[in-house]
């Protein structure tokens, strides 16, 4: 087990990168602490898999350092880093039985037979592979294959870390949920550092204690699921996390704060000060649909706006609203009644986030 530290890491697949867009990973630093269960969340093409391959040693970073417990491991192979990785699509050794597949990583380091058997049986039991243990691996179903693939990582309980690269992609939803819980159990049992790559926020938040959100080759925020939800560090996190994502309104600076389409927005005075001193013209206000207040009667700080349509999603509803030239979303409880096609909306001040150049201006929450 180890603490994994990435120091000014950057990676480009081209030999002579000419600009930022040539980098799969832009310069960044990050620490994965010992024994944590982490998720690496981001859209496809953001560099998640590249980062995983750099950590495991399948790929050499073009710049920066990878440290395991403060020792530089850049030049070490995955074998010497003692790291396990599970791939998106099942990789099984199809000429071997399930048992031999699971035993393979242990035999390769010459573990005694009895110990191998104990380990394999233990993992096979956890993954419910007992029945097929002595079958040829090639005849398994897709999700059994993926379980075998995961099992090869899990049998090694002395590893520095186990990396998962979207391991549940090929698995059907029912089993997905079960396997995710299994992983969580295994994590609690063995306390191994686990990094779980996914593009599914639900998967990330059920598995991980802390989530790193990746965007355009950088980790833009690292925090608990709650932190990501309540105060997204970056407009991308606001947009990507949550369902639906955060409302983001481009605004202009005024003497008292900010406004859009001539409508003033009442943000926290401290934030207003920031906005005033900033020279950037890229200023946005973000608010989660969950925090938009809807009412049929006007209030002091409310805005009258037009209801475009309402989607009923079972336990809650999404209201699409038009305010000036902006389209906003609000999420309301099923039982809240909306009369007619106009409604009065309010923005609770503590949930109005200020983003300058796409990054959150912090330090002003009440």
């Amino acid at each position, binding site marked *: 087990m180890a603490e994994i530290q990435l120091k000014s890491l950057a990676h480009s697949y081209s030999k002579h990168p000419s600009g930022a867009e040539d980098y799969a990973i832009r310069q960044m630093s990050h620490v994965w602490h010992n024994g944590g269960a982490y998720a690496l969340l981001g859209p496809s093409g953001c560099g998640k898999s590249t980062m995983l391959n750099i950590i495991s040693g399948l790929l050499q970073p073009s710049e920066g350092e990878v440290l395991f417990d403060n020792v530089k491991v850049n030049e070490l192979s*995955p074998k010497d880093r003692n790291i396990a990785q599970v791939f998106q699509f099942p990789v099984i*050794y199809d*000429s071997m039985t399930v048992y031999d597949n699971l035993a393979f990583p242990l035999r*390769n*380091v010459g573990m005694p037979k009895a110990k191998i058997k104990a380990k394999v049986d233990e993992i096979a039991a956890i993954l419910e592979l007992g029945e097929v243990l002595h079958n040829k691996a090639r005849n398994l179903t897709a999700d059994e294959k993926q379980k075998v*693939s995961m099992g*090869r*990582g899990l049998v090694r309980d002395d590893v520095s870390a186990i990396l998962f690269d979207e391991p549940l992609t090929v698995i059907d939803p029912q089993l997905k949920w079960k396997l995710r819980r299994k992983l969580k159990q295994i994590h609690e049992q063995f306390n191994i550092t686990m990094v779980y790559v996914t593009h599914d926020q639900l998967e990330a938040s059920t598995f991980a204690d802390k989530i790193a959100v990746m965007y355009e080759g950088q980790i833009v925020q690292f925090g608990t699921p709650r932190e990501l939800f309540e105060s997204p560090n970056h407009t991308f996190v606001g947009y990507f996390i949550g369902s639906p994502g955060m409302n983001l309104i481009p605004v202009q600076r005024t003497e008292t704060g900010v406004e859009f389409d001539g409508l003033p927005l009442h943000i926290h005075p401290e934030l207003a000060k920031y906005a005033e001193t900033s020279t950037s013209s890229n200023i946005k206000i973000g608010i989660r649909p969950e925090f938009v207040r809807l009412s049929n009667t006007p209030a002091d700080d409310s805005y009258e706006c037009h209801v475009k349509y309402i989607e009923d999603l079972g336990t809650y509803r999404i209201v699409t609203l038009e305010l000036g030239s902006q389209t906003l979303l609000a999420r309301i409880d099923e039982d809240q009644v909306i009369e007619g096609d106009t409604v009065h909306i309010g923005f609770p001040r503590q949930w109005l986030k200020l983003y300058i150049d796409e990054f959150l201006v912090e330090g002003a929450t009440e």
Partner: protein
Amino acid sequence: MNKVSNNKAWWLVLPVFILVAFSALIPLMTVVNYSVQDIFGPGQAYFVGTEWFEEILGDERLQDSLGRQFLFSAAVLLIQIPLGIGIALMMPTRGKRASVCLIMLAIPLLIPWNVVGTIWQIFGRGDIGLFGWGLNQLGFDYNYTANTGDAWATVLLMDVWHWTPLVALLCYSGLKAIPEAFYQAAEIDRASKWAIFRYIQLPRLKSVLVIAVLLRFMDSFMIYTEPFVLTGGGPGSSTTFLSQTLTTMAIGQFDIGRAAAFSLIYFLIVLLVSWLFFTAITHLDKQK
């Protein structure tokens, strides 16, 4: 794939059937016909039953030739299959260098077989050939036209030179078909080079190796032109293989009855051994 039952498909295979029937069935029937008759001239043929077959099976010259043939084919397989796999493993996987390697490897396969014989006939000579001259310079008493051992070694070396590229190319294309993910997984699983070969590469080479073994067995078992040009079957009859024995009998001595009987036995041996190889390799896989 689920195939549809449709006897009209016979129309599609009819041209092949007619063509192959013409160039295989008719001649084969001729051979069978000859093998049971004694022919003195037009209209003067006598049915002799299995007499030719009995004679052939007892013929010492043929038995020797058959023994040499099996020895040669066995040596060919034992050398060329492992060597071909090894070369395939060493080949670069992409880029210009890979194309250059592939083209170079394919060249010996496209040289007419008599020219292959000619190339080695020249190359191996002590006076004008680099190989023979070099060996003599190094103090070896090498002469493929005089010494049985040297003749054998040269014929074998020539065949290795000629055909190992085929095995290597087959294996190379088999290796190319292995997805990168398998190597990554193996690296993660701390597999040694040997374990990667044994458990990942070799199992996935199986289908091309079946082809390689069968092709190499069949073609080495039918070898004629190359040793004929190189050694003429000599010294003595030390490098005379089955095809040459048969050709001498049929064309040279016009001993038609015996040649026909011999032909059938020859063909049956090739079929039988090929079938044995095929079932052995496919069964190996079904165990466990």
